[in-house]
């Protein structure tokens, strides 16, 4: 059974006078431990597709099965709970909670899961060590560089021990060095811990490292090819 299975996904936005077909009949499957890039020009439907996979948006038609569960028919409250336990998110703009320190940002999601305090603290430290930021644990997001913030975001995404991590253009706001460092971190987590990553990007540096590259255009998959990266 695939980790993620999309069948004939359609997403139409009716917010304007003319309906916008953001995704038009996408069918694909993502296996465990993949390191997959969804690429395409702006407006091709990358983010919409990621949102549908992550349960942040519901498809107009089609089914989304994640880890054997059809999430396309779930209620909003059930989806929140599903995301909390199964999906890690990394956003383009980092989106850390500004009033919390790096450690607290990582710990927060475990708090939502009801993990007991000692376990939370131990795992937070492990994750910050994994992303190389243990010495910045007490820093607030405003005191961290963009690259550091994004690494904290990755640690936060992993904190809930998700089935996979969705990253929407994770390197878009980063300089080359930070982007490469982040990619290496994600690759390392994929290789060493078997964490599945699905990310949207049009950054050539990222595409080169992907094991699988799915290209979207006008909401449709135009190609689905092995990438240049080394599979785990």
């Amino acid at each position, binding site marked *: 059974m695939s980790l993620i299975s999309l069948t004939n996904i359609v997403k139409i936005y009716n917010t304007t006078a003319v309906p916008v077909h953001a995704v038009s009949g996408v069918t694909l499957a993502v296996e465990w431990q993949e390191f997959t890039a969804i690429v395409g020009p702006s407006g091709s439907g990358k*983010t919409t597709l990621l*949102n549908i996979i*992550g349960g*942040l*948006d519901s498809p107009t038609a089609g089914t989304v099965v994640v880890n054997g569960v059809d999430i396309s028919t779930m209620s*909003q*409250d059930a989806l*929140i*709970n599903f*995301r*909390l*336990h199964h999906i890690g*998110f990394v*956003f383009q*703009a980092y*989106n850390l*909670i*500004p*009033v*919390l320190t790096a450690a*607290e940002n990582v*710990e*927060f*999601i475990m*708090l*939502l*899961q009801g993990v007991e305090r000692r376990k939370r603290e131990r795992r937070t430290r492990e994750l910050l060590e994994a992303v190389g930021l243990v010495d910045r644990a007490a820093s607030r997001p405003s005191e961290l560089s963009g690259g550091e913030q994004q690494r904290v975001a990755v640690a*936060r995404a992993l904190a*809930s021990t998700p089935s996979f991590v969705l990253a929407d253009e994770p390197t878009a706001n980063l300089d080359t060095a930070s982007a490469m460092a982040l990619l290496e971190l994600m690759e390392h987590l994929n290789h060493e811990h078997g964490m599945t990553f699905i990310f949207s990007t049009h950054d050539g540096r990222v595409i080169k490292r992907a094991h699988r590259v799915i290209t979207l255009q006008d909401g449709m998959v135009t190609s689905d090819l092995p990438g240049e990266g080394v599979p785990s």
Partner: protein
Amino acid sequence: MLAAIAWKNVWRSKRRSGIMIAAIAAGLWGGVFAVGMFTGMYDAMVAAAIDRNLTHVQVHAPGFREERLIGLAIPNPDSVVAAIRSNRGVETVSPRTVIEAIAASPTSTQGVSLFGVDPGSERAATSVSRRMVAGSFFEGGERTPVVIGRKLAEKLGVKLRAKLVLSFQRPDGTIVYGAFRIAGLFDTEATTFDGRTVFVRRADLDPLVGELLIHEIAVRIASNDSLEAVAGALSSRFPALRVETWKDLAPELKITAESADITMGIFLGVILLALLFGITNTMLMSVLERTREFGVLIAIGMKRTRVFGMILTETLFLSLTGAVVGVACGSATVLWFGTRGIDLSFFAGGLSLYGISSFLYPVVHPVMYPTVAIMVVVAACASAVYPGVRAVRLRPATAIATFG
């Protein structure tokens, strides 16, 4: 941790939160002070009435208060007075002869309430002896002295040491006249009382009445807290007499005192209602500014009830901080003026109609604090509803795409 986040969120926009906290504090400061003023006024009105003539408890023969007939006297008054004096909680007792009489001066006549009193007992039980503006309360050596209110003296056109003739109907129906000399003029805060009250010594009145008649036993107790207990004990002991507290004797005072709390509650409620809109606006701005953040929180798995709870907690922190500051400042102001008093002599004429002193001592009853706390919490919760609903209705994908 959620409470900690909420507290930190309150201080994200220090200026905005500071202004809102200052507004809440200022509103409650003014509110508490105004409540203190009104409460002080009502308390003073009740205390003045008790001190002036009412005392805490009065004992009468049944029907006397309604009929005011001279024959409706208390049987065996000496033994009743002695029994009341021995009662626990009783401070002083003043037996009175009370007669509806006519006071006549060379130029005028007035209907008056004539009180035959034992000066020592009356001095201990009421404050009239301390409100003398001329002469004294039976401390001089005059023969047949009478003490009247300054207002009555003005109506009768008499001054200190002037002669006053008092006439009334005796129990046998005959009219008796007695000549008295004005030995003292009093001036209390109650113009009605001053305009129709006359005190004479019982020793001078009894021969005119022709017999010893006590119509009223005024009882002053050590503490108003034991009012009902003392009244209950006296009622049980003298089932044939009517034992009434000041609340029964002056129901308008009781209603005033009770309605004061309701009035103050409404007054504070109006202040908080006005603040409610300000708090709602502040929280709404805070929520709108953090649209993306709330989108992220919902995306990563924060339940909507928790999001709402966080906004509610932020609102409570904001409101309670302002409330603590406002109530503290208000209480301190009340305390400061409560010991020094506020001179309202400019309004003395109007205040005296209601029996209120022109010097006001604000006071806040302890019950006000939990009342304010509950009202602030309710106002805060109400303020949080709209911003909270806005936040929980956010769709994460749309909210995250928001710039901010």
